[in-house]
């Protein structure tokens, strides 16, 4: 089982398309820093005597729901969504399934490899954003006052507020773990459906359509907003007029239930599937 999981992960991650991670994260980091620096120059911020540091670049990039939704999340879906379809098209599934003791083992390894890929992806993205932020913002070992005590008008825009004294390294580690978990659960939806649909062009359209819909039908219906990770996990630090934040434990429970349900659905489909 471990061998199978390892093999699936290697197969999923060591592909040329993963090179897209570098420009994608660099781009969103640059856009976010540009946005933040614009505010820094703004007289209102000058008035409050706030300054920015590297963690604003890092956290701001991951907490920007537009970048997160349409770049970070979609790119990950694009990277892993053909996990099953590619195997079927290339006959690889014949070689691997034949070596497994049962189909559930194969499916479990597939699911686990998506989670592992999610962790690698988020970690890599965090490192890229960190170094890009380092180019424009000063390095400090704590969050800036902009992050811990933003001007009141900024809160109404729907941004984050980090409790003073929070260790940025611990916070980022938690952010990586949670983001990896959430994007993996989201990517599992098209991967599971690909067991039935088997159309390489159709499967990525499902999450894309979902994101478009959830963007324009933004509401408090959390089940529809599985993609808005920061609002789930860091709800306590996040203020928004459009989405009700969830506590960390409830969001974990919510995502776990979705993940388990997808595993069972995949296992059921698999028991009736011919490759």
């Amino acid at each position, binding site marked *: 089982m471990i*061998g*199978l999981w*390892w*093999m699936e992960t*290697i*197969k999923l991650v*060591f*592909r*040329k398309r993963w090179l897209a991670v570098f420009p994608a994260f660099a781009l969103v980091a640059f856009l976010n820093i540009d946005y933040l620096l614009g505010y820094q120059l703004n007289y209102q911020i000058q008035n409050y005597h706030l300054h920015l540091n590297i963690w604003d670049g890092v956290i701001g990039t991951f907490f920007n729901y537009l970048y997160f939704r349409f770049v970070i999340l979609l790119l990950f879906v694009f990277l892993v969504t053909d996990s099953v379809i590619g195997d079927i098209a*290339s*006959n*690889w*599934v*014949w*070689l*691997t*399934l*034949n*070596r*497994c003791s049962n189909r559930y083992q194969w499916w479990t390894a597939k699911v686990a490899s998506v989670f592992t890929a999610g962790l690698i992806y988020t970690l890599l993205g965090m490192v890229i954003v960190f170094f890009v932020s380092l180019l424009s913002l000063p390095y400090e070992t704590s969050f800036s006052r902009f992050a811990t005590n933003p001007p009141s008008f900024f809160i109404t825009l729907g941004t984050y507020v980090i409790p003073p004294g929070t260790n940025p390294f611990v916070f980022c580690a938690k952010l990586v773990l949670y983001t990896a978990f959430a994007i993996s659960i989201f990517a599992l939806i098209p991967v599971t459906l690909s067991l039935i649909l088997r159309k390489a062009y159709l499967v990525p359209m499902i999450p894309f359509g979902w994101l478009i819909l959830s963007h324009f039908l933004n509401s408090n219906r959390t089940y529809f907003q599985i993609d808005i990770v920061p609002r789930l996990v860091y709800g306590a630090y996040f203020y928004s007029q459009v989405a009700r934040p969830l506590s960390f434990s409830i969001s974990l429970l919510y995502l776990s239930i979705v993940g388990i349900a997808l595993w069972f659905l995949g296992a059921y489909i698999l028991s*009736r599937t*011919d*490759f």
Partner: protein
Amino acid sequence: MKEILKIRSLKKIVRRKPILRDINLTLSEGEILGLIGPNGAGKTTLLKIISGSITATAGSVQLAEPESGIGVLPETPALLPSLSGFQNLQLLASIRRKAREQEIREAMKTVGLDPANRKAVGNYSLGMKQRLMLAQAIMEKPKLLLLDEPTNGLDPLGIIDLRQLLFRLASQGVGIIIASHLLHEIELMCHRVAIISNGSIVREVNLQSSEQHLIEISVNSRSDWDKLVRWAGKDNLRPLPSKDFPRGILNSELPVSRVLAELLPAGIAIESIQRAAINLEAIFLECSQLKDGVYR
């Protein structure tokens, strides 16, 4: 010989269309069985059901030693293009953990590949990919090998190597099933052949049988052919495709000299005549005749 595979009353129906109908087949240790049939006859489906990639609608597939695993060679090479050949096999071997590095190297050398070659598989020729696929099929030393068009992409030397390798594996007790379109290769490689048409095994032919009464004969012209048909009777003469002289297989217990002695006085101009081994091509044509202009 001990039976290593027993297939009983196997059926596969997809969207109400029967793909396989009541397949019964056995394979013994050290036996090489050929599966031939027109495109879409159900050869690959049968191999996939045996290996577990496809579930059967009814019937059973029994393996004598399921723990020894099945080696599979798909029709098209399925490999990870960015990894080397050795890395590809390492990854596949990591699933069962039966083949260690030494066994992987041996398998690669057996099929004529260098395990130390670090070239990415994406840069391999089709023949090299096919050899690598063969290596992955044999590296875990399975007791049953399923090969779907194994000569695809192989050059003549590769085909000869493959034939020798299969004979060697068979002599070690490995049962092998080969699905192929190349009748000549099947004739050379297999002990027994099953002809599949429209999802059914329409005929099984033992290529090692010594009780043959077949004579291959070619005549000078169409009128000679007509005379020959009248002499032999339509049921005893099967025509074969020919680009020059009319040619066919005569089913007769008479010795060749006696046939000659009867045909020459009848004014039939014979171009060639010889005792024939089982002619798979003729049998295949007979089993896969066109019906109403389409394959049966």
